[in-house]
């Protein structure tokens, strides 16, 4: 997945797959959000250059695309770290110490939320409930769920990811 992102980015243009996807969706009404999902899946965020191309392919104004991207929390305008961490700040996780996890993680990474570490390895964001509340507090790293995370265990988890 990560190498795929790197490849797509170094190409710096729309991939054939994306072009095909847009051609397929072009005529379905309301396809913009589905296309943006696909773009983000590929690049990890919505690169400015690609947003221009999407505007052209779907024939929607760029302003509308930015309106949509900035409305929805899910879409990112900047490149995330190579490893993406989501800390759940839903109610169940909040009650069970989600805030302490955030503080600890910021300490370990040396940067705050929504910031990429200088080496480009990590970025973390707070999200609202990933639907595993029974396992609170919950952390998601590169799509993998870590449940009942203790602040003490964070160092080990991050170190292990770093090694991969």
């Amino acid at each position, binding site marked *: 997945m990560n190498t795929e992102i790197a490849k797509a980015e170094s190409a710096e243009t729309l991939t054939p797959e994306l072009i095909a996807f847009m051609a397929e969706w072009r005529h379905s009404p309301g396809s913009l*959000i589905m296309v943006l999902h696909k773009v983000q899946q590929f690049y990890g965020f919505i690169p400015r250059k690609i947003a221009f191309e999407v505007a052209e392919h779907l024939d929607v104004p760029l302003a509308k695309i930015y309106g949509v991207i900035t409305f929805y929390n899910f879409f990112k305008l900047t490149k995330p770290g190579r490893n993406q961490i989501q800390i759940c700040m839903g*109610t*169940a996780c909040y009650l069970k110490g989600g805030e302490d996890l955030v503080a600890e993680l910021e300490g370990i990474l040396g940067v705050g939320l929504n910031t990429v570490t200088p080496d480009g390895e990590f970025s973390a964001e707070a999200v609202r*409930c990933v639907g595993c509340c029974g396992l609170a507090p919950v952390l998601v790293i590169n799509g993998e769920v870590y*449940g009942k995370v203790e602040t003490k265990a964070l160092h080990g988890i991050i170190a292990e990811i770093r090694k991969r």
Partner: protein
Amino acid sequence: MAYKQYILVCGGTACESNKGIALVEALNREVENNGLLQEVQVVRTGCLGFCEKGPIVKILPQDTFYVEVMPEDASEIVTEHIVKGRVVERLLYDKRQSQAHVGVDGLDFYQKQFRIVLRNCGVIDPDKIDEYIARDGYKAMEKALFEMSPNDVIKELRLSGLRGRGGAGFPTGVKWSFAAAQPAGQKYMVCNADEGDPGAYMDRSTLEGDPHSILEAMAIAGYAIGASQGYVYIRAEYPLAIKRLENAIVQATEYGLLGEKILGTDFSFKIELRLGAGAFVCGEETALLASIEGNRGMPSPRPPFPAVKGLWGCPTVINNVETLANIPVILLKGADWFSKIGTETTKGTKVFALTGKINNSGLIEVPMGTTLREIIFDIGGGIKDGKEFKAAQTGGPSGGMIPPQFLDAPIDYESLTSIGSIMGSGGLIVMDEDDCIPDVTKFYLDFTVDESCGKCAPCRIGGRKLLNYLHKICDGAGTAEDIENMKEISLAMGRASLCGLGQTAPNPILSSLKYFMDEYIEHIDEGKCRAGKCKNLLLYSISVDNCVGCTACARVCPVNAITGERRQLHVIDTAACIKCGQCYDVCKFHAVLRS
């Protein structure tokens, strides 16, 4: 081929993330190694509900319930239980099961439950349409298409008394009749699977465990209102549910149960997925439609209601996942049967995601009318670590806090509203003595302010002001006047906001002010937070009498604010202290004091 035994492994997200996939592989390997492939089948099912102790394994027909099963345990389960018929005692949740008299239904967690919506969750493999069909799947659709007119379907639903489970509780049959009454032409059926309430995952589990039930219900709705196109609007944060739905749509289409001329009739119905993108307000129906149309998800004033003028201006019915999951059962068993379950005003069952400071967190389904006490103490096993129950919140950020004196209130729409909360979509969060009410209220407001779309001023400005007051109070700078202002803003916001988000956002404030005023007053007058949550109000010190100088606190302090020689009294430099509480937790001699 009939198998003699089945090993059911929970494949809900919680269990899967807890090594569930490796467990299935290990079990399959063991079954094969023991030459049992012809006799034993390992089935990965949907959520069994008991998420607290996942991954869960259930063995049929013996009905044995194993908890916290790790891949390493697979060999013992197969060689001991399956081959030798000896229960693996150490993995049992309830040791009574070792005498083999107690089935899963006999466990406290399941005893008071009644499963309509979750009927197939944890029973079938959600990726196999045949298993759904074997349990009467698509039979209700067949019945509707061949034996009932669209009007009959709507009549049956009205008689059943089913009300929307997305929160508002609007009678489903009535909603359908509005859309059906619109002139024929393009109409839409939309399933609301946005599940924005943080701390709730009922819809996710239903979609992951029984996706076909939703597709079937949507097709029935399409038939009843005259729509040929359906959309499931689902959160992008639920990848497993998306995958299972996509797979289910492909299978149903292959079987001719969706698509053109279903079962040879003139009725055609297609379903597509549309992904949400992390905006809570998109759960609100008009905002949801804007989002499907590819726009910013801003709500619009109603009327016109979507049933009259919805998606792309066409009549549209929007129903919640859980509402839909009830419908095939209602058609098969009849409105009469359904309306006997529940209370006077609220029929059927309700699924709750039971979370927070409770022993058995998990997914439960109970008949309407069950009391909170039964849910929290009988099913949920009471409060964690024997602590004191403080409050329960239903309805998430739109709901209210329910204090102990209402533990015996029955769950139904009217009763919950009368005590200042709402039914909501099914999040049920339990708080104990360690939770600070103003702090949790602040958490909810922070959420709604964050998620306000900003279109209307009462919500955009009112929410921000309320949040500022709560911050002030939790920081120890609140005044009595702030409380009065909060009440006033809350009432105005509730009345003047454009959509349900702003109208209900003050609920946590209003209910907590009503039932937990003493905690607010303590924060304001005494600068005290009894739960020890509001850091600005805390002061840590070390007791001269109790400190033995073990150095544990000094070693754990992340900012080196504690000094002292071994076997000497330690001291905390309060100016350097960041009030993280680690010293308090680590001290075995109750020598760290918090006030």
